[in-house]
């Protein structure tokens, strides 16, 4: 709860204080609130401090933050802070962009904590609506307009489908509270038959969420939208939406756990399809941004495997995976943003990275992490996921390993230009806040390596 309060407050303050000023002047304030939220929520998740007395007025059947949810809120705020720190601001835009980002983050946290279908829907909307605007925030970019339009239409449809599913679920169970739905379902499980309305409901709600997390075959919007949106917004969509989406999704599926074996029938093929399609189509991409978009689709496939494993024992695995995915993706998006500033969109942009040792190290480490090579957190996450999913469906794990093998072929493409065909050139890319960026980048690398070598830390955190 403290996360929602702080980030929302930060958003409102930025909006009011930053009015008529450029974005970069109010950036520190939003960052500060997000960092505070990350630290406080993290501390609360570990039980070091307790804010629950301040938020007793929140009805627990609507929003509850268990320690695991609090740590997810913490990493969500951290990712928000990290994105705002690494990906640069422009003086052209106003503080409204930051306010919207903070509001979207609030929505993400609401999704994470929701215990009620209406709350889940509200979170989904609070997350999506600012993003529709942000996608088109570069008003004179025609692709940005296209992206915003596409995202809005797709998002509106998927939300409508989600709502229809929620209505069916209400029809089938007579309640919107997740815990009560689960109780109804376990009654039905005794009779061996589930109400058709509930089956239809969970399918439709899942379709709505699958749209959001861009799983195949509901992924077609995402490469286009990522490509058109400003880089920072694309990063936000790739990381925050996916983290919040999957935590909410796993909560929803956990609610329907009495019909788990029936659900697995279509989650497993969907997961395999997403992993294979994401990885194979990524091979054919020419631009870095689209490759990253397909990489995030393939990661949605791996994350879908979390829906088939029993959640209680594997919460820390989900947390580790989301952390590793977010860190790697944000750093790669940052590098893509930095080196595409001169207009080069293909992988050749990395030819000049050689001059900057820190960027080069970040490229290597984040790529290895996201490809799941040992000694990075990415490997820990993938290994834990695969061994948890193995007992449920060994077939899905074999396909996931196959997908990992394919993914190396495109993840390693930048190395060709960074090492083998590197060019010496004047360090053309110089931006303000260079020092701060480097501090963030180095701490990100340290996170990836230390958590990869000493995985006990993440185990305790989540």
């Amino acid at each position, binding site marked *: 709860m403290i996360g929602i309060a702080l980030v929302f407050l930060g958003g409102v303050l930025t909006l009011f204080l930053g009015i008529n000023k450029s974005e970069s002047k109010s950036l520190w304030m939003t960052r500060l609130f997000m960092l505070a939220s990350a630290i406080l929520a993290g501390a609360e998740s570990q039980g070091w401090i307790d804010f629950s007395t301040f938020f007793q007025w929140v009805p627990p059947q609507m929003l509850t933050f268990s320690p695991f949810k609090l740590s997810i809120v913490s990493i969500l705020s951290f990712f928000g802070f990290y994105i705002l720190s690494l990906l640069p601001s422009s003086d052209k835009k106003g503080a409204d962009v930051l306010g919207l980002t903070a509001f979207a983050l609030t929505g993400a946290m609401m999704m994470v904590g929701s215990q009620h279908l209406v709350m889940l829907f509200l979170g989904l909307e609070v997350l999506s609506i600012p993003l529709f605007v942000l996608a088109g925030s570069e008003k004179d970019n025609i692709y940005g307009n296209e992206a915003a339009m596409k995202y809005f239409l797709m998002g509106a449809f998927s939300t409508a489908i989600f709502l229809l599913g929620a209505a069916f679920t209400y029809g089938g169970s007579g309640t919107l509270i997740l815990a009560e739905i689960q109780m109804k379902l376990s009654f039905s499980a005794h009779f061996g038959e589930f109400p058709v309305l509930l089956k239809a409901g969970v399918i439709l709600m899942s379709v709505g969420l699958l749209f959001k997390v861009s799983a195949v075959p509901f992924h077609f919007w995402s490469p286009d939208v990522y490509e058109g949106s400003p880089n920072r917004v694309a990063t936000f969509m790739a990381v925050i939406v996916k983290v919040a989406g999957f935590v909410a999704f796993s909560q929803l599926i956990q609610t329907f756990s009495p019909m788990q074996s029936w659900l697995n029938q279509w989650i497993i093929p969907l997961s395999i399809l997403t992993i294979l399609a994401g990885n194979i189509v990524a091979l054919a991409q020419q631009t870095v941004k689209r490759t990253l978009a397909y990489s995030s689709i393939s990661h949605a496939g791996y994350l879908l495997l979390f829906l088939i494993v029993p959640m209680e024992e594997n919460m820390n695995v989900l947390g580790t995976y989301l952390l590793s995915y977010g860190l790697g993706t944000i750093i790669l998006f940052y590098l893509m943003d930095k080196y595409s500033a001169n207009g080069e969109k293909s992988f050749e942009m990395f030819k000049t990275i050689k001059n900057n040792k820190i960027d080069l190290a970040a490229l*290597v480490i984040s790529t290895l992490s996201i490809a799941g090579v040992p000694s990075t957190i990415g490997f820990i996450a993938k290994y834990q996921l*695969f061994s948890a999913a*193995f007992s449920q469906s060994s077939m899905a794990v074999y396909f996931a390993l196959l997908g990992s093998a394919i993914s190396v072929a495109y993840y390693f493409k930048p*190395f060709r230009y960074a090492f*083998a065909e590197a060019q010496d050139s004047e360090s053309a890319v110089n931006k303000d806040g260079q020092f701060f960026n480097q501090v963030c980048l180095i701490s990100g690398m340290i996170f990836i390596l230390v958590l990869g070598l000493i995985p*006990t830390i993440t185990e305790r955190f989540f």
Partner: protein
Amino acid sequence: MEFIIIPILASLIWAFLPIKSRWIAAGLGLISLVVLLTKYNQGSFPDGLVVFDQPWLGESVRFTLVIDQITWLMLFLTQFLLPIIVLSVKNNNNKLISWAFLMQAGLNGVFMAQDGLIFYLFWELAMIPIYFITLQFSEKDNFVTTIRFFIYTFVGSLAMLASLIYLASLSGGSFAYADLLNTQLSHSQSLIIGGGLLLAFAVKIPIFPFHLWQADTYTNAPAQGSMLLSGIMLKMGLYGLIRWYMPLAAESIDFYQPIIMALAVIGIIYGGIIAIRQDDMKRITAYSSLSHVGLIAAGFFTLNSSGFNGGLLQMLVHGFNVVGMFLIIDVIQQNAKTRNLSELGGIAAKFKVFTVLFFVIVIGTAAAPLTSGFPGEFMLLNSVFKYNSVHGILSGLTIILCAVYMLRIFQKAALGSAEIEMSEISFIDYLPIIIIGFTVLFIGLFPQVILEIFPMSLEKLMLEISNAKGVLS
């Protein structure tokens, strides 16, 4: 643990400090050799000495490192060759030295790991530096070669990971070597698990149809990269074969044995014949390596004591000899600017000492009696002959083939009258070759010194395999 930490520290030093001397690099490399020789006395721990043991990931994975006599042999190979390899690095190439030390850490970890997942972790950790070495320092654009190399081995490793996860799920979640060893497998489970492990090792060794990455990678990689790959990294695959595949999936040995034996014999002859037709000295060495390690793999798969003894001896000897060959090729290439046999000749007339060393290493590789190649090769051929006389006769051809291509190298490069320009060879370039040349003669004369390092651990390992399998010839 010092065998992981010292190389990583050395790697960091070379990555960040602008040191210009190769001697310091070799000195840093010698530290771990000295630690190995002084602190861990060879032969004193047949059951394995636990050097590090900490919980790592949940309850299922422990960070366990163990040194037994076989591990000691492999550690000795690594620590001995690393200083030699970094001593031969030219042009103040600090990055290459840094990567090489990082790779040393990975290799040491692979040999010491006593937990499935830790083994996998180091297995991949050893892969990353060599990938970047081949990518960064090769002679021409070879992104395709390196990515093929990486994907080949990565597919193999992922198959191994799948096998390990499967095996651990059967052993109740634990990855500890002892638990994996004690897991009873049905025949079909064993086939799947063994298949995954074998795929990883067969790609790395490489055994015949999985060798396609090898020749191009060796040829394009810088000389030191080829040395690391062929001298030490191949041994990871062979070591994995006896330490991880055979005891853990022993039920599947009966099924895979004829297949691997046939493939290995094909590889022995195939590698030898192709080597004869090559012009590039590095390619010849690559194919000769394919042929030699094929014989070692075949020896291990005969499952008799002479095969294991000869195989372990030959792992060490092959490491020394192939590094010696690449050192020779590197010196020739640095001085004559070519390594094609058709353009070389007449080295003997100008460099007497170099030619003598060249000849010693050539006959060592060709397994002439009283050189280091002979005892191991003899024991291996003996074991293969015991397994099946047809296999034995066919793989015996390797002696003839190897003599043909090795003497051809010597004849074309050292003898003859072709006029090539070669500058002086400095002492620092001579020293690694002298050391290797010395080992060729020393092991050739006293093979027993090496064979006495590992008898008790080998006996224990063979007992484990036979217990798991039921019968052992």
